[in-house]
């Protein structure tokens, strides 16, 4: 059924294998994720999106920061980088500018991308750097014990808000759209097909693309807030998820027990960072302009052939 599409996968890849398997470092399974954690579900969507796009996995790079979600890079059988906390986007920016032929995916948690790394997120969106950012938002810093994050809704009980959080949370789609992102969507881990399709879209379009996936952390966030286990949370997403593709982005705040507005909110074309740089410098310098990539692309194609992942 699932013929191997990943040249990096073992040659005699068994038929009837889980389609995600070719993109996993199987020797590292089972994962460290808790029972009912939503992160693995998003990875399944991502693997299936990779297959649907038919993209050459050798040209896909995945970059994570630190956190439970930050583990994703280490579990994927792709060229992957597990960077320092909050710095996945700067690292990915460097990769993309050094080798624009790569499809660079940033896969990390809400804390990593929007709290400690929030400034990088804003500026990558502003510059429209061609990155595909998947933010698994479990509304807390899970890996360190479930502290209140910049995304924690008001009244949520966390390790650092025992009487409930009182700070207003960041509304991530609104933030990145205002900063200039060219693609913005939000789904939950219940909405697997929509999540896969959003990932597929991000992988095939150009410009800064951002997908927020609301996801359960049953061990910390759900338990402290008496929201049941992973399955209870998935069922609540089914109830609370309200698909509104043309929603007013200012109305997308996450609340405790309130509706979760989901959808594909923004899709617009504007020159990405590289296009803007090249066009501007060409116009300014005219025949003096030397495109650094004309030469570099041929070279990096050579190198890619030699560097195998794993």
């Amino acid at each position, binding site marked *: 059924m699932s013929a191997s599409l990943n040249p990096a996968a073992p040659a005699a890849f068994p038929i009837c294998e*889980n*389609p995600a398997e070719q993109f996993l470092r199987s020797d590292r399974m089972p994962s460290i994720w*808790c029972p*009912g954690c939503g992160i693995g*579900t998003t*990875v*399944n969507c991502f693997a299936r999106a990779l297959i649907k796009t038919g993209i050459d996995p050798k040209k896909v790079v995945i970059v994570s920061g630190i956190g439970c979600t930050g583990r994703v890079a280490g579990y994927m059988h792709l060229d992957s980088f597990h960077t320092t906390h909050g710095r996945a986007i700067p690292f990915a920016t460097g990769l993309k500018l050094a080798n624009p032929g790569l499809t660079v995916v940033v896969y990390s948690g809400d804390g990593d991308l929007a709290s400690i790394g929030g400034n990088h997120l804003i500026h990558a969106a502003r510059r429209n750097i061609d990155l595909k950012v998947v933010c698994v938002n479990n509304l807390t810093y899970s890996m360190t014990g479930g502290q209140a994050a910049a995304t924690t809704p008001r009244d949520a009980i966390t390790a650092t808000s025992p009487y409930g959080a009182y700070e207003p949370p960041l509304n991530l789609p609104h933030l990145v759209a205002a900063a200039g992102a060219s693609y913005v969507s939000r789904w939950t881990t*219940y909405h*697997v097909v929509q999540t896969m399709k959003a990932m597929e879209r991000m992988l095939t379009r150009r410009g800064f693309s951002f997908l927020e996936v609301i996801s359960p952390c049953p061990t910390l966030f759900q338990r402290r807030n008496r929201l049941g286990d992973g399955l209870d949370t998935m069922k609540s997403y089914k109830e609370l998820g309200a698909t509104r593709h043309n929603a007013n982005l200012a109305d997308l705040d996450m609340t405790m027990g309130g509706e979760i507005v989901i959808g594909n909110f923004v899709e617009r074309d504007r020159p990405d960072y590289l296009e803007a740089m090249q066009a501007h410098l060409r116009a300014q310098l005219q025949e003096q302009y030397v495109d650094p990539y004309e030469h570099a692309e041929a070279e990096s194609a050579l190198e890619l052939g030699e560097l195998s992942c794993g």
Partner: protein
Amino acid sequence: MAKGSVIVRPERCKGCAFCVEFCPPRVLALSPAFNAKGYHVPELADPEKCTGCDLCGMYCPDFAIHGFRFPKPAPTAG
């Protein structure tokens, strides 16, 4: 006749029951038996109704199950 089936890797399963709950024809159930880590693993309770849609595979956070479709039988002559 069933259109498809599932393959389970019991050693990976953490018993979350996402697959059981979100299977459209609800053909799965958690087995009363335990795997080595002490989790209940899904089994096909109503195999005839499995469509091989692989939605269980998309939901499973632990890559422990996936669905597949049987090849269509070749049309018989006559």
